[in-house]
């Protein structure tokens, strides 16, 4: 076997196994999440209903948490483990530590996931129908929060592991620039550490003690604000692994080279600085936060367009470089010279295209005045199905088509099925998110099993709500079938024989790291500035919220009430017996 074609799995078998394991959890969550997705799509549109509407929140929570927490973040840690190992050219300092954080994350996810799914069995009395946005007054069973804590501690340790590996590498290579992929991992993790301060405080000091019955009340506005402190930057935690694939793998697939390594570094640093001090833009309609703070959050949010636009330029230019090297000519004709029959390329390119559309609806959401038009309508899920649901998820699936053979030494079962799958995702999402955006403009609400209220008609400028429902249902069905094709293709790939020579290398950028200032690699500096910006954006509003409502609020009941004190083990046991059909 030639050294050039040696795969990651050949060189780093233990690390490859860990990456495969994290992908396994990610894809299990993807399959389950997709199932809950189609149930929602068909139920909301009244096409097919086989669950009671009272279970809709359980379905919605499972869909959200399994996809945007478990699928995306397990994919991230797998991809980042591959990237750090590959780009630093070394194993983790202690692979048992790597195994430990992955196990911790898995245990946390299982606890949280099971707590949500138990919501389908009313008799047991355990549920967590609180959605991905798990702030008060919605209350989950303590196990939900406990699982989240365990999961997040696992992600923190993953970051420790990668920083430790980098520091050891640095000792051996004191004068070298941080390899680009490792730079991306480290900056993403700095952002994650800053972002999770909010959710850690919310869960540990308020939500968990509250659900355990240790404290009577919480200040809902405080937990909401702490949630969105984390809840907005987490979207970049999902996005940055996709960015890593776009910056480092997509140019190779296109047949070219990354246009600029320095620009890529600037983009990741901008996300560290700008992603956290913006969360209040999710709270434009919340009473209790002064308009001035909301305006500051809006301004900060608009700055975030900068790294996205830099990415659009750099990534498209890298694709164009590949197309020109393949003989592409003209102002637009070069697009036809791109390798559209490669599912990994096509999936990522279509994901990027949808991200551009998501950028538009994101600007609308971020605008303080125009947000009122779409807030809490189905427009908002339409937006994030373009961003996390396509830019991130489709890129991850497409990236897997390229990465999976190098992790298993087996060829993909079917490249044409892969191509069909990514195109079907694009088509399904185009239908579904279009109908969601349009329906949102007509005022159709989100987060409800019964969007049509009795005695009320939504006025449409053209077409009809029925037509939008058909689009949504067909789109959702295509997305579900696409997920099945993806999972089936990967599963069948495991039946292929092992072969040699599937290894891949990544081309060096046209403009390399030496063209950028060394200060970009100063992680302490960026972490410090990020914390200062967060303080500037959040100290005053949080102070005002506590001053007005107190740390623990002024009362009010949780919903649904599911604290431990309400759990009767005898009832739970009876329910299990009933399910198993054994003597009662």
């Amino acid at each position, binding site marked *: 076997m030639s050294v050039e074609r040696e795969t990651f799995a050949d060189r780093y078998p233990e690390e490859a196994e860990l990456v495969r394991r994290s992908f396994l959890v990610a894809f299990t969550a993807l399959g389950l999440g997709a199932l809950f997705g189609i149930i929602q799509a068909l139920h909301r549109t009244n096409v097919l209903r086989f669950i009671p509407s009272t279970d809709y929140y359980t379905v919605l929570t499972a869909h959200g948490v399994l996809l945007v927490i478990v699928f995306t973040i397990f994919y991230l840690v797998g991809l980042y483990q591959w990237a750090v190992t590959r780009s630093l050219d*070394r194993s983790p300092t202690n692979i048992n530590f790597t195994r430990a954080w992955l196990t911790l994350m898995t245990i946390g996810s299982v606890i949280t996931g099971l707590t949500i799914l138990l919501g389908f069995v009313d008799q047991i009395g355990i549920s967590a129908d609180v959605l991905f946005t798990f702030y008060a007054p919605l209350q989950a069973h303590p196990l939900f929060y406990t699982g989240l804590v365990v999961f997040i501690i696992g992600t923190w340790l993953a970051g420790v592991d990668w920083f430790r590996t980098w520091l050891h590498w640095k000792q*051996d290579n004191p004068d070298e620039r941080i390899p680009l992929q490792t730079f991306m991992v480290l900056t993403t993790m700095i952002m994650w550490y800053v972002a999770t301060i909010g959710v850690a405080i919310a869960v540990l000091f308020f939500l968990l003690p509250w659900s355990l019955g240790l404290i009577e009340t919480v200040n809902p506005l405080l937990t909401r604000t702490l949630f969105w402190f984390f809840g907005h930057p987490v979207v970049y935690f999902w996005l940055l692994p996709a960015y890593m694939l776009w910056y480092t793998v997509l140019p190779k697939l296109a*047949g070219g080279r990354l246009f600029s390594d320095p620009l890529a570094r600037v983009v990741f640093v901008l996300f560290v600085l700008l992603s956290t001090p913006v969360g209040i833009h999710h709270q434009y309609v919340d009473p209790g936060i002064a308009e001035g703070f909301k305006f500051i959050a809006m301004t900060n949010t608009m700055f975030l367009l900068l790294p996205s636009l830099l990415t659009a330029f750099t990534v498209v230019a890298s694709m164009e*470089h590949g197309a020109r090297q393949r003989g592409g000519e003209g102002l637009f004709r070069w*697009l036809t010279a791109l390798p559209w*029959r*490669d599912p990994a390329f096509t999936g990522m390119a279509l994901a990027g295209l949808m991200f551009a559309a998501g*950028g*538009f609806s994101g*600007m609308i959401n971020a605008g303080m005045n125009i947000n009122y038009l779409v807030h809490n309508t189905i427009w908002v899920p339409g937006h994030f199905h373009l961003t996390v649901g396509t830019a991130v998820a489709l890129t991850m699936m497409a990236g897997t088509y390229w990465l999976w053979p190098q992790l298993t030494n087996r060829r993909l079962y079917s490249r044409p099925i892969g191509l069909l799958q990514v195109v079907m995702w694009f088509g399904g999402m185009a239908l579904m998110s279009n109908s969601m955006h349009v329906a949102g403009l007509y005022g159709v609400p989100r987060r409800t099993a019964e969007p049509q209220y009795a005695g009320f008609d939504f006025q449409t400028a053209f077409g009809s709500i029925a037509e939008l429902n058909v689009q949504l249902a067909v789109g959702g069905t295509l997305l579900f079938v696409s997920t099945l094709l993806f999972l089936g293709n990967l599963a069948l790939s495991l039946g292929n024989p092992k072969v040699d020579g599937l290894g891949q290398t990544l081309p060096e950028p046209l403009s390399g790291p030496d063209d950028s200032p060394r200060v970009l690699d100063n992680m302490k500096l960026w972490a410090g500035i990020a914390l200062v910006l967060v303080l500037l954006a959040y100290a005053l509003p949080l102070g005002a919220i506590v001053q007005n409502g107190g740390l623990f609020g002024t009362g009010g009941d949780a919903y649904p009430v599911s604290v431990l004190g309400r759990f009767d083990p005898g009832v739970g046991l009876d329910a299990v017996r009933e399910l198993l059909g054994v003597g009662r």
Partner: protein
Amino acid sequence: MSRGVPAVEEEDGEPEGPEQSVSAPAMQEGPERELSHEEFDPKGTLALILMYFTILVVMWVFMYFIEFLGNDLVVVG
């Protein structure tokens, strides 16, 4: 210690020609030529981005139209 995965950055040359993407069809054609940083002028990218900006501006103005001209005046506060 480093075990030395052969990153292309460190390779002396590719004996088997340009490397094919592992997810691409076997018959896919490889690059015809090599373009350096100086030779490459991303004018297609510029055209696409200008097109995107135009769409953004038109759609944003359209939304603004719906928000302010499609509704009555609202007094906030």
